[in-house]
């Protein structure tokens, strides 16, 4: 577990009741956060927190957030009586792995959808051909009846 945390470049930032930066630490540089300063308003620093400050003070997790430094982070936001803790965990490797899987899965699904579409078109075309054939057979039958009557 400890090793896992190390690999995931833990970083944190504590915001006061006015959502100004109060404390910070950990591997912030991993997330492209180099010039944090005490007293800065979080909204101007963390675009991904947009909306968190509105409404309920319910803690939560935003998974796989792409940050400007091309790193993906799991961003935990935890409210307590003094403010808000923002905890970053590196999720880049996980996102890379998931992206590969997701890409293949989605491409396969798109292909499946395309095949289904083509099958439906084929069925519709077959049905039209069958109808035409039936019409043709019926006309031939009528024609034959006329010809036979003539004889």
């Amino acid at each position, binding site marked *: 577990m400890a090793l896992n945390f190390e690999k995931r470049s833990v970083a944190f930032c504590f915001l006061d009741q006015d959502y100004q930066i109060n404390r910070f630490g950990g591997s912030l540089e991993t997330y492209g956060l180099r010039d944090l300063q005490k007293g800065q308003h979080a*909204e101007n620093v963390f*675009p*991904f927190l*947009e*909306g*968190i*400050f*509105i*409404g309920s003070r319910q803690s*939560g*997790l*935003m*998974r*796989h*957030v*792409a940050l400007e430094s091309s790193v*993906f982070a799991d961003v935990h936001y935890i409210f307590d009586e003094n403010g808000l803790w923002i905890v970053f965990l590196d*999720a880049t490797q996980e*996102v890379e792995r*998931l*992206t590969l899987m*997701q*890409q293949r*899965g*989605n*491409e396969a*699904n*798109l292909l499946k*959808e395309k095949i289904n*579409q083509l099958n439906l078109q084929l069925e519709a075309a077959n049905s039209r051909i069958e109808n035409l054939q039936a019409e043709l057979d019926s006309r031939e039958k009528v024609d034959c009846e006329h010809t036979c009557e003539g004889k």
Partner: protein
Amino acid sequence: MIKKKICMLGVFAVGKTSLVQRFVKSIFSDKYLTTVGVKIDKKTLDLDGTTVDVMLWDLQGEDEFQELQVSYLRGTSGYFLVADGTRAFSFDRALLLKEKVDKVVGDVPFVMLINKADLTDQWELDEAKVEEVLAKNWSVMKTSAKTGENVEKAFHTLTMMTLEQ
């Protein structure tokens, strides 16, 4: 400075990322690249003299394994419901998604985008279904991230709607 958070919602491969890229960077790529998680872009708009910072949250598309993470929606000012005109299924799923989103964010402005308007020869969408949502007074636009058709207009329209809310 007014800030508005706008989310891009829809099933996978409908063109959410392409719409954002077209709007923010005026670029388009035919190559499909899936989005995992969320990517946030920003564009500053001047709407009738009002400057608005639009934060665009491009969310991972839904599929059979991956459901929308509702934590991304928190505090959203509005959202796009994106469907792909060449895949009728994506339109039906967008309608289901809308029901889910309503429960989380309540009554916030949204615009439905039927994307890939440049591929009308492959259009699969039942116009009667589009009429049905229009009858509900939904704002619906046909867009093409490839040609840029209606893209700028769509983002401006939704941002205006969030300002009027």
